[in-house]
């Protein structure tokens, strides 16, 4: 059973430690994670987009770009909370070093989630800035995208850490990406509206957290706010509901 949650302000110090490390390598980090969404921008938005009819009166690039904000933040967070966390635990033994200080295991895991959420915000916002430069940001409500990505980032971090706790082997993270992340990426309304799908697929897509994050980023960028509260509730409630699971699973993994 889950023991009582043992969290303190030291969880922010864990985040601080990760940021100190990130500062050493942010340029490499950022440029690599940044390249892929830009390639999608170019290939899908501009290349493929030239052959695509306007969607709800938007150019394909305008339609696609906010979706890439959401998916880019999801991937950045997922890499961090699978490979990143696992390397710190299993190879660098950073976990063991930090746990020798007054930091508790819950502080530590929560700190990893916060760092995952930080990356979600950072990598999503970078794409948003590119959109701004390209004149693709229509509404000032786009300012709400980063805080929304922070909440979404917590959710993605939890999902990723749950996988890490269940299948803790470096070779198994491939499956997380090919079995979970990629299907979410493809069927959450990043590339095409879900309305055209069959009823079953549409319902399945509605269950995807990314669908709601994409709705939020797209709606906020365009200033189309109707119905967004449902999407936000979905993401926020799911993030709260899942919180105990990564903590429990990581505890089992670390204390084995």
């Amino acid at each position, binding site marked *: 059973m889950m023991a009582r949650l*043992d969290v303190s302000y030291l969880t922010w110090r864990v985040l601080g430690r990760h940021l*100190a*490390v990130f500062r*050493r*390598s942010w340029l490499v980090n950022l440029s690599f994670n940044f390249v892929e969404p830009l390639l999608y921008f170019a290939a899908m938005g501009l290349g493929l987009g030239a052959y695509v009819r306007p969607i709800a009166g938007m150019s394909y690039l305008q339609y696609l770009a906010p979706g890439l904000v959401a998916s880019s933040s999801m991937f950045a967070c997922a890499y961090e909370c699978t490979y990143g966390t696992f390397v710190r635990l299993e190879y660098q033994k950073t976990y*063991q*070093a930090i746990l*020798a200080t007054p930091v508790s295991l819950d502080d530590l895991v929560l700190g990893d989630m916060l760092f995952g959420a930080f990356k979600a915000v950072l990598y999503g916002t970078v794409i948003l800035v590119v959109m701004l430069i390209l004149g693709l940001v229509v509404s000032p409500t786009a300012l709400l995208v980063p805080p929304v990505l922070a909440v979404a980032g917590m959710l993605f971090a939890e999902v990723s850490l749950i996988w890490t706790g269940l299948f803790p082997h470096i070779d198994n993270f491939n499956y997380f990406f090919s079995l979970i992340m990629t299907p979410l990426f493809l069927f959450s309304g990043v590339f095409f509206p879900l309305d055209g799908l069959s009823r079953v697929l549409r319902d399945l897509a509605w269950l995807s957290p990314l669908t709601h994050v994409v709705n939020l980023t797209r709606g906020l960028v365009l200033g189309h706010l109707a119905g967004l509260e449902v999407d936000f509730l979905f993401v926020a409630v799911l993030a709260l509901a899942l919180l105990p699971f990564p903590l429990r699973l990581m505890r089992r993994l670390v204390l084995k």
Partner: protein
Amino acid sequence: MTEAVYARGLVKEFGRVTAVTGIDFEVRAGECFGFLGPNGAGKTTTLRMVHCFLPPTAGELRVLGMPVPAECRRIKGYLGVVPQENNLDPELKVLESLLVYARFFDLSRSEALKRARELLAFSGLEGKEQERPEDLSGGMKRRLVIARALINKPRLLLLDEPSTGLDPQARYQVWQRLFRLKEEGVTLILSTHYMEEATQLCDRLVIMDGGAILAAGEPDRLVADHAGREVVVVGDGAARADEVQTASAGLYRDRLFLGGDLFLYTDRGRELLGSLGHLGFRRLVLRPTTLEDVYLKLTGKEYEE
């Protein structure tokens, strides 16, 4: 004055495996206390319970007078831990890694900087502030891990095999630091399978095997009590143990079979050697006993024929 560590009936199980089987020990404030034993003896698991990494399955454990696991956060504020494997942040430079670590103990930036500089001097790492761990020698890395464990001025320092894998010079440099810490009043607990390390550093120690404590005491006392003054090693003598017994009945107090050799523990070495002279062994050595003999005797049961 309370003990630095007090353990009664301490048990650790991992699923169906019992790593520590219910041990009692106490560590006095200011001493150096050793856990000696082969790999898998339960030393690391015991240390990890003491520094609040693993919650005990059963038993009573108090560290610096505070109960584990209830007071773990407070306890860990007074501890330093040097793990078996170096776990430095590969991305962080030497000084920065100390400063980042200091934040977990709530040290202010200026306190941390002052303390870090002191510790780099103490560890012989001046001038290395801007190096990365990968550029340091094995001995320097080890000293940096020890320096990091000292950032909070711990009252109790735990070291899991502090000098494993180091060359003799590097090992001695680590020991020097540990001597100095002891002089400053820091309680030290270390695990090792080096007899030399245990003999040099430890005021008292326990020998563990199979998750249990087999013997406890001061190194000299352990040697005197368990191995006697001297040992005669009879090369390839195991097969002729009966002949040996007939020839020298009553001259040795105990014997040990090890890799075909026969170890005879005695307080009358010369006489024993003389009694074996006519048996024609080609390798017959008389030497003073050491902690190693106690260790072999207590942990080498599987070799007995």
